[in-house]
């Protein structure tokens, strides 16, 4: 997807996160943050010319929804564009240091996904702070790479 579209997603998700209580609404707060960070990583990867920014939407690794002539979407094999999560799929090309740092921050967030959202681990204040700080660093790196991101 185009970099500008990812940036718009980041803005919307950050707006949503500000309305949520990290403890009371942990699952939504976390998922919005994780999704925002993934969009940020995709924006940075496109900006760095590591991945393609075609307006196709990732369904599974290597499979994207592609708009057809009649306006409908159809799944098709497509070269690497957006990743679904950091590491899914793995990127084999060289990645600039700042983008690799963004991906590392998102790995910090993602490690809490299944235990705290799908399973029974209690999202402690420490976990919440760790996720918030990691996403914050990820988005700061995005702003440094693409200064027009957010006010």
């Amino acid at each position, binding site marked *: *997807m185009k970099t500008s*579209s990812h940036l718009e997603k980041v803005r919307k998700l950050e707006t949503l996160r500000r309305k949520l209580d990290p403890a009371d609404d942990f699952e939504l707060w976390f998922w919005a943050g994780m999704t925002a960070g993934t969009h940020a990583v995709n924006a940075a990867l496109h900006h760095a010319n590591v991945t393609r920014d075609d307006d196709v939407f990732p*369904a599974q690794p290597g499979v994207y929804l592609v708009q057809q002539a009649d306006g409908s979407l159809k799944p098709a094999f497509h070269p690497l564009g957006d990743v679904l999560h950091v590491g899914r799929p793995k990127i084999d090309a060289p990645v600039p240091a700042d983008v690799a740092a963004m991906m590392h921050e998102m790995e910090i967030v993602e490690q809490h996904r299944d235990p705290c959202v799908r399973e029974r681990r209690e999202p402690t204040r420490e976990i919440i702070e760790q996720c918030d700080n990691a996403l914050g660093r990820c988005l700061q790196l995005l702003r440094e790479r693409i200064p027009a991101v957010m006010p």
Partner: protein
Amino acid sequence: MLAGTHWLNAALHGMAVTKPENDVFHTYLLTVSEFRRLSVADESLINALAEIEDLRPAFVRGNFPGGQDAAQRALELLSLIRSKGNKE
């Protein structure tokens, strides 16, 4: 999607079709065989979650037009899943 997945797991555990230690994470991560087995338990339940999951690429990862209609459809599907999972 996450709420629907939890309701689906509650329903499947309640029907003794799956064990609590074997939660479904995504319908598309199930083997074909397991998808078919769970569909025997309740086809509409599995298909409802699958349909919610199918909305994600275009409207959550992507910016395809029609997000509001997609959200409404997701809520309808969630309501169906919830009705089957919330039987305590």
